[in-house]
């Protein structure tokens, strides 16, 4: 498997650490409801198809990357810096 780091270019899977769903970017407010916090920390979809998840270029530049990929075809559709996405949504 190959992922394209926005800083370093296309690299082998083994340079990356896999975290999980990119929902991790959307941390609720401290006073959000229990349901919101439960969803944020625990509940994950397991889609057959497009998914967005967080990878860390641990063996490279140290960037956290949001990878949009298809779990059925294994296509990697898009890789973006998590910080760019987060700042754009702020």
């Amino acid at each position, binding site marked *: *498997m*190959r992922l394209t780091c926005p800083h370093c270019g296309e690299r*082998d*899977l083994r340079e990356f*650490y896999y*975290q999980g769903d990119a929902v*991790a*970017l959307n*941390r*609720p407010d*401290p006073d*959000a409801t*229990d349901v919101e*916090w439960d969803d*944020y*920390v*625990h509940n994950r979809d397991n889609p057959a198809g497009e998914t967005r998840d*967080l990878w*860390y270029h*641990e063996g490279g530049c*140290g*960037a*956290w990357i949001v990878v949009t990929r298809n779990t059925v*075809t*294994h*296509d*990697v559709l898009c890789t973006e*810096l*998590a*910080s*760019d996405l*987060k*700042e754009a949504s*702020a």
Partner: protein
Amino acid sequence: MRVAGKGCVDRSKPVSFTFDGRRVQGFAGDTVASALLANDIKLVARSFKYHRPRGVMGAGSEEANALVTVGRGAHQEPNVRATMQEIYDGLEVRSQNRWPSLDVDLLAVNDLAAPFLGAGFYYKTFMWPKAFWERVYEPVIRRSAGLGSLSREHNADLYEKAFAFCDVLVIGAGPAGLMAALTAARAGADVLLADEDSTLGGRLNGECEDIDGIAAAEWAADMVAELASLPNVRLMPRTTVTGAYDHGTYGALERISHHLSDASGRPLECFWRIVAKRTILCAGAIERPIAFRNNDRPGIMSAAAVRTYVNRYGVAPGRAVTVFTNNDDGHRTARDLKACGVHVTAVLDSRNDGPSGQGYPVIYGAEVCDAGGRKALESVTYRTVSGEEKLGTDCLAVSGGWNPAVHLTCHMNGRPEWRDDIQSFGPVEGMVPGLTTAGACNGTFSTLGALQEGADKANDAVQALGFKSIDAEVPAAEDAPYNMAPLWAVAGRGRAWLDFQNDVTVKDVKQAAKENFRSVEHMKRYTTQGMAPDQGKTSSMGALAVLADATGRGIPETGTTTFRPPFVPVSIAALGAGAQGIGFAPERLTTSHEASVTNGAPMIEAGLWYRPSYYPKADETKWRQSCDREVQMVRNAVGVCDVSTLGKIDIQGPDAAVLLDFVYTNTFSTLKVGKVRYGLMLREDGTVMDDGTTARLGEDHFVMTTTTAAAGPVMRHLEYVHQCLRPELDVSMVSVTEQWAQFAVAGPESREMLAGIVGEEIDTETFPFMGCGEITVGGVRGRLFRISFSGEHAYEIAVPARYGKSLYQALVQRAEALGGGAYGMEALNVLRIEKGFITHSEIHGRTTAFDIGLERMVSAKKDCIGKTMSERPGLYGDEREQLVGLKPVGPVKQLTAGAHLFEVDAEPVRENEQGYTTSVGFSPTFESFLGLAFLRNGRARHGEQVMMVDHLRGVTTRCEVCDPVFFDSDGGRMRG
């Protein structure tokens, strides 16, 4: 038998090797299989289950019969295909799965027991008495069924792994592959051409035909020479591409020195990971056998393999060869044999119309229905409308048509598509992104077709990569149509083999269908068809045709089983190359490592680090003696310990304090420059992640320490919090664990000791408890932190790692002068247990700040990671198991870690469990074992007694529950 004047083996270079101890002569360029056939050695193996005599069947990696063991002792390699092993002087080859010898194999009795050993026999027979299965039947079956065996010695051979990148990967160097590689290379692409054969050319080396007016093998050699001369082409002979993986990644096994008597330090094999932008699969096709009674006799071979032996190796596999075919290719075998003077008994063509014989008889509408001769073929019986006839023959060349080698196209879950025109499954474009097929593996069987397709597909590939396609001139070549009438199995009595390697017959497949294992996947598992090392390369198609027939379905409806990597067996040693012994895991060594080892300290692994357990003195024979002494040394004088392995993260920027406030439960923005604070970090789910101290070196500059084990995860976490949650913060961080050597100096004499080493004055003013600052050590700028993990007046002194070794020496020397010295992990552990300090034994991923008694460290004034979730019901309160201290009070004085706690009179069973111990140690200070434990509602139970029960070690100890801080509970020694 050698045929004069034929083949490309070098007859001026005789090579001799041994087969089962017998000396065999061949020539340079021979494989074990060709050399054995040249010497009329027909019997080369015994079959897996029935121990039937077997001979060479094919001429390539698909060989199902001729598996041999090569080498001896630690270098022994089992299950080597004789068709792939090139010979060299001194090569030692042995047959396998026979006893006492290949010729007289007593286990051949299994063949007589065949009626009991059919499909799924182990599910049905040997059922009684029940206990016998495990103790008698299974061991006996396992011993008698099998392949070669391992040497059971350490594998002493060298293996390597490597990566390669290219624009275009061409797999297979037959006509299509050579043409594709040359076209892509001429267009300017970076080309990698891999082929599993030692000589590139594929079937061109085994056929008697012309390309561009010259012999095909010669044309192939010219092409290879041209490719080799191009700077943008890499040729990889003896390299099998074993699997297709995501995003253009391919696995490939290169056999580097299997063919050399002296490897001269080269590895045996190299496992490649090849990343290609485009791939052209030119893997060719595999000729299929036809099932008929006793079709596994030695001497019954693939018709194409017979051509290869004659044309490439100059070997006739028999003196009177018969051909059995359902297509025109069989006639080519007869033609080639005839042309070099080998007697062709007859061509038995199952079709009623076929080419006419050219100097040999052709019998149309004939099907072979039996084969005679046990250790070598003696005769075949064939059937026509006019009845059965017997023919004397010592070799039967069989062609049942061709199956495209679609394997790699299916490695990413694709399924091949049935093609009526070739009566086989062909590849579907796009099943592996970036991969296309050309030539026989795409069902294009003529040489001209393959050449044309190779050129076209290469042009498509280079165009897609932005190169300009070239006008590839395809030379004149053979372009015969593929005339074939399917014939999978000849009807009749007796056993007809489908899977030679796993001994699966037509009957077995029919039996499976009859027992309702109708799905091809079920049939496969029930009969074990296709589950041998060859993965059904020659048998799967026939088996599913038989299954389709038995279940009244068509072959396309029956479908194929799943093709999985690897295409050929790959040794674990090659896959794991470099990861043996010292290469198994990286080693991280501290700057004091050498000194510790010199002083006899046993080193223990802490993550990837190596740390000293203790420093034994000459008169100390047990580790406890050293540990006790080192603890007392720290309590009474001074000790030195390398703590460089703790994670160190340098954090800088105007928002550094904001980030720390967010990742730590407590507040760091209020920390004054020149001070250190203990911090607690939670995971977002509210459990404790890590702890450690963070020093503020400047307004915008902090240095965080993490535990040794969590250094990586914490670094990752900080980056995550910054980049994914708070990217607006102006802060940067970098791990500096490797850059600083840091030593703990602990004990009442520590200040006195440092006074002789540190350039600056150290007093309560400049370095109060939890103070920090820059210092000079022998002219080197360093850092000093007044922190303590032992409960003593203590410091940690840090210098750039390159000065670590000399500073450590100086520190130990000075400590020894003051009645102290170095201490190791055992003493460090006892010291911190005495003081009730926690490690990852306590913060093991299930404990909360409340559990360890630090809930007050979770600031109410601010948000932090994990705060919200740590307030969930159930994560605090009386029901929680809370950190306590334990002291033995009964006759048994021993405590063990991992033991369970029960009320004194309760039965020690799971239902009554009250908690568990996490850390224990013998404290010389208190002359008693001390333990840290989690006990339900423990903080309210100080003074109570509980029973510690260790069911594993058989220890039961009555304990008193107490505060986890045993030593100096008001902290006077530490602060003073």
